[in-house]
């Protein structure tokens, strides 16, 4: 049975740092060599074709209906494959991609401002702090232009200029205007486009849709992914679904922190279960913390809300110089007693420094006791984002025209009027760059298991630039996976399988046992209380700033908490009905395992890089210090077994086109 999961207290002998083993290096074998701008074409040409008449006989399971999964399901359905699509919400249209606000990048160069595929490629590699694969990122930039064409043809109502052509804006500190947007609802509009294409295939009979279904296990037979075990969340029935290939497009795992900008149901279960069956997990500790979120208001808080970082274009960020002023009405604090700390430390970039730096400095000033807003725990966790100057300079109407919907949202959530009182913001977990390791074909280390969108580790390195996750999701779903998966499917249809096969029955039995176990513990603590405690540990020790000492402490705490979870969690209700506590319990159980791996990954990476700052690796003036000589690799972790330790496989990152440089924003 695979239920309890305590790791022994004393470390196993021969482990690095007492925590993990080091295995063979790995590498991607699918990307062609040669000029970077020809690699994708070469791969498309070399990938085997599947005769249209055979496609109907080939079946593909796709878990997830966000941009990455919805686009793939629609496209494979149109091509004539037999697709089964899964999501846990009541409709595919509600995947969390819907919440993306700011926009989507594409190298269209409509503004003739010097943009190009190469520049988008270059910016994305640099933005990822040189921890992503050049071939993948180049391909992403290359297909970005097709995405815009496709979405416009579907009726996605992007913002337009008076002449009727598409509008662009510059986003996230980039110097060209390449971001396409639909007011603050870009993700919604792109997802509705993919959703409608998907529903069209449901009507055509090529895609069968399973709403309110949660994947709980992957079926691996003779080393190949051949299906999933899913729970019908309405009836509670455990179902077996078999296919020739499986695609995981299940999104990110930011909810390991409990509070994040992710949806309540966002989870790691799909990818974690695959990890336990042999799929390597790439760079699990790479998380992105977004600087402009609405701060935590109290203990009851269930999630955090992002406000577009475009607010930093006109708002000024500050805290009081003196901790004694932190409780005062900000309007009564005179100019000379305010610390516009980003403008002070980074005079040339000021409030527009990249996300990671803005986030960390906010944490620093709050740690110094100069945060504002309500106390949560021992500290006030908030800094002012002040529009007073902008309101004087631009008029209230102009501010409302540009930012009205964001300011209204702020007012609705906090009850404060941002036209009168400075807003308060604080960083929050927003995106996970880590995910299942995949090769250039987006195939994981389990043959036949493909991973797309935020669920894979692939394109953003150690830090993601704004407006590039939507681009990656749709690139993977519409334009990459449909080509690479055919190379795999061309070898099929694979041996016919039925539910009585030993490996299938075993996968199913393990799910049944886990559900039964969760319902039988009947302890004292709710699932949410465990989730909150885990989130606090992760945020404190594996959040914006990490140290060896803190991470070691976190690992111990997580092990203890996981142990308690399996002894003391209280999940009421039955297995054979809608049971939201049971759903949450399964997700939290997996977060409790992932959290430990994230800390181990963070601990082994003794450098400050991209979204994460390592206390032991900083320059004299406290800035992030990367170590390319030691760490220019992808850390791909293999599951080490229930009582074993994870095994690290390194994929060296080779830069043939972009020169590695330390970032500097001073």
């Amino acid at each position, binding site marked *: 049975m695979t239920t309890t999961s305590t790791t022994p207290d004393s470390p196993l002998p021969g482990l690095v740092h007492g925590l993990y083993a080091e295995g063979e290096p790995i590498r991607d074998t699918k990307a062609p060599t040669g000029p970077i701008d020809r690699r994708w074409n070469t791969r498309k040409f070399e990938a085997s074709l599947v005769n249209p008449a055979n496609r109907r006989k080939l079946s593909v399971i796709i878990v997830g209906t966000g941009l990455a999964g919805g*686009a793939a399901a*629609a*496209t494979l359905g*149109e091509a004539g494959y037999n697709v089964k699509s899964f999501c846990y*919400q*009541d*409709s*595919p*249209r*509600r995947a969390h991609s819907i*919440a993306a606000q700011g926009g989507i990048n594409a190298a269209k160069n*409509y503004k003739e401002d010097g943009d190009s595929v190469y520049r988008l490629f270059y910016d994305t590699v640099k933005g990822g702090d040189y921890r992503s694969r050049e071939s993948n990122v180049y391909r992403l930039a290359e297909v970005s232009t*097709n995405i815009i064409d*496709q979405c*416009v*043809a*579907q*009726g996605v*109502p*992007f*913002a*337009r200029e008076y*002449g*009727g052509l598409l509008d662009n804006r510059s986003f996230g500190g980039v110097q060209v205007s390449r971001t396409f947007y*639909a*007011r603050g*609802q870009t993700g*919604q*509009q792109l997802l509705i486009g993919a*959703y*409608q*294409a998907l*529903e*069209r295939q*449901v009507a055509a009979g090529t895609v069968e*849709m399973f*709403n309110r279904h949660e994947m709980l296990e992957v079926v691996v037979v003779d080393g190949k992914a051949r299906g999933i075990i899913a729970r019908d969340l*309405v009836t509670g029935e455990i179902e077996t679904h078999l296919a020739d290939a499986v695609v995981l497009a299940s999104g990110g795992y930011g909810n390991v922190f409990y509070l994040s900008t992710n*949806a*309540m149901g966002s989870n790691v279960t799909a990818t974690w279960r695959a990890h336990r069956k042999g799929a390597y997990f790439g760079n699990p500790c790479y998380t992105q913390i977004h600087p402009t979120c609405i701060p935590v208001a*109290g203990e*009851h808080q*269930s*999630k955090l*809300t992002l406000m577009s970082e475009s607010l930093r274009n006109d708002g000024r960020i500050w805290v009081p110089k003196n901790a004694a002023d932190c409780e005062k009405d900000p309007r009564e604090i005179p100019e000379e007693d305010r610390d516009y700390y980003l403008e002070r430390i980074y005079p040339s970039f000021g409030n527009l420094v990249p996300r990671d730096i803005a986030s960390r400095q906010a944490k620093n000033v709050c740690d110094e006791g100069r945060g504002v807003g309500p106390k949560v725990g021992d500290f006030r966790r908030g800094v002012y984002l002040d529009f007073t100057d902008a309101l004087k300079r631009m008029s209230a109407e102009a501010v409302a025209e540009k930012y009205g919907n964001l300011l209204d*949202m702020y007012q609705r*959530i906090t009850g404060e009027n941002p036209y009168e009182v400075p807003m308060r913001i604080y960083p929050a977990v927003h995106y996970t760059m880590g995910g299942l390791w995949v090769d250039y074909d987006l195939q994981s280390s389990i043959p036949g298991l493909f991973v797309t969108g935020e669920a894979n580790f692939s394109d953003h390195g150690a830090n993601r630039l704004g407006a590039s996750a939507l681009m990656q999701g749709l690139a993977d779903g*519409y*334009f990459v996976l*449909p080509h690479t998966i055919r190379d795999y499917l061309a070898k099929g249809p694979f041996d016919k399988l039925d539910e009585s096969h030993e490996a299938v029955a075993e996968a199913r039995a393990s799910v049944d046992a886990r559900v039964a176990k969760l319902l039988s513990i009947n302890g004292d603590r*709710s699932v*949410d*209380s465990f989730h909150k405690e885990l989130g606090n540990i992760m945020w404190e020790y594996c959040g914006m700033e990490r140290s060896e000492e803190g991470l070691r402490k976190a690992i111990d705490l997580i092990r203890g908490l996981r142990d308690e979870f399996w002894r003391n969690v*209280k999940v*009421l*209700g039955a297995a054979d*009905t*809608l049971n*939201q*506590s049971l759903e949450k319990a399964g997700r939290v159980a997996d977060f409790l395992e992932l959290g430990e791996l994230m800390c181990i990954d963070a601990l082994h990476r003794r450098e400050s890089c991209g979204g994460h700052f390592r206390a032991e690796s900083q320059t004299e003036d406290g800035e992030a210090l990367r170590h390319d000589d030691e760490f220019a690799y992808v850390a791909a972790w293999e599951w080490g077994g229930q009582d074993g330790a994870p095994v690290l496989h390194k994929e060296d990152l080779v830069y043939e086109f972009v020169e590695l440089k330390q970032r500097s924003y001073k």
Partner: protein
Amino acid sequence: MNLTLKIWRQAGPTTKGEMVTYPVTEISEDMSFLEMLDVLNEQLNARGEEPIAFDSDCREGICGMCGLMISGKAHGPEVTTTCQLHMRSFSDGDEITVEPWRADAFPVIKDLVVDRSSFDRIIQAGGFISANTGSAPEAHSVPVPKDKADRAFMAAACIGCGACVAACPNASGMLFMGAKITHLGELPQGQPERDARVVNMVSQHDHEGFGGCTNIGECSSACPKEIPLDVINQLNKDLRGALMRGE
């Protein structure tokens, strides 16, 4: 603040439901309505009573998953989604009733959770533009006048929550459908399938058991995205035209 909640409890799709009274205490006005229910659920769980089932996901007003009838109003007293409603909209001592959406086309699954898959089937019937992946022309080859693009965007803001249906005395889905007809109908790309779209969607809508529209307007007042009533006029106009052209 302290409140009295009367909440619909129903164990399953075929069981009979009833209103159950739950007092809640020490509710902060900064909580969202759903966080207030989270607090209640933690208390129920601690007492060994099964928590109340309700839907939510994004909790930021965009996914359309949440939706409760709060004291007789879809999404409660403000123009917003249930998840964005905050407790400062209520006062100490209030009695609040909480029920699921009520409509034949949205059967109750459990407690406050309903089945809205009928909306998906309306989209399947024609709420799309047929453009296979890879077949699209260059995006700038067809300019779209800004006023048309803006109106399409306004209608595309619908989040498919179903409040319009819940608010309508006829349980009609016309506002939801009109929003889609308007979104796609304003765009040049939506023209080739325009007639077939409206006819097929309306036929599916009626087949699902949604009621007809008698111009009451409750839908639009309840809509968190403020979709205006004139999308229904657009739908009716398109439908008449399509039928006249023999679709």
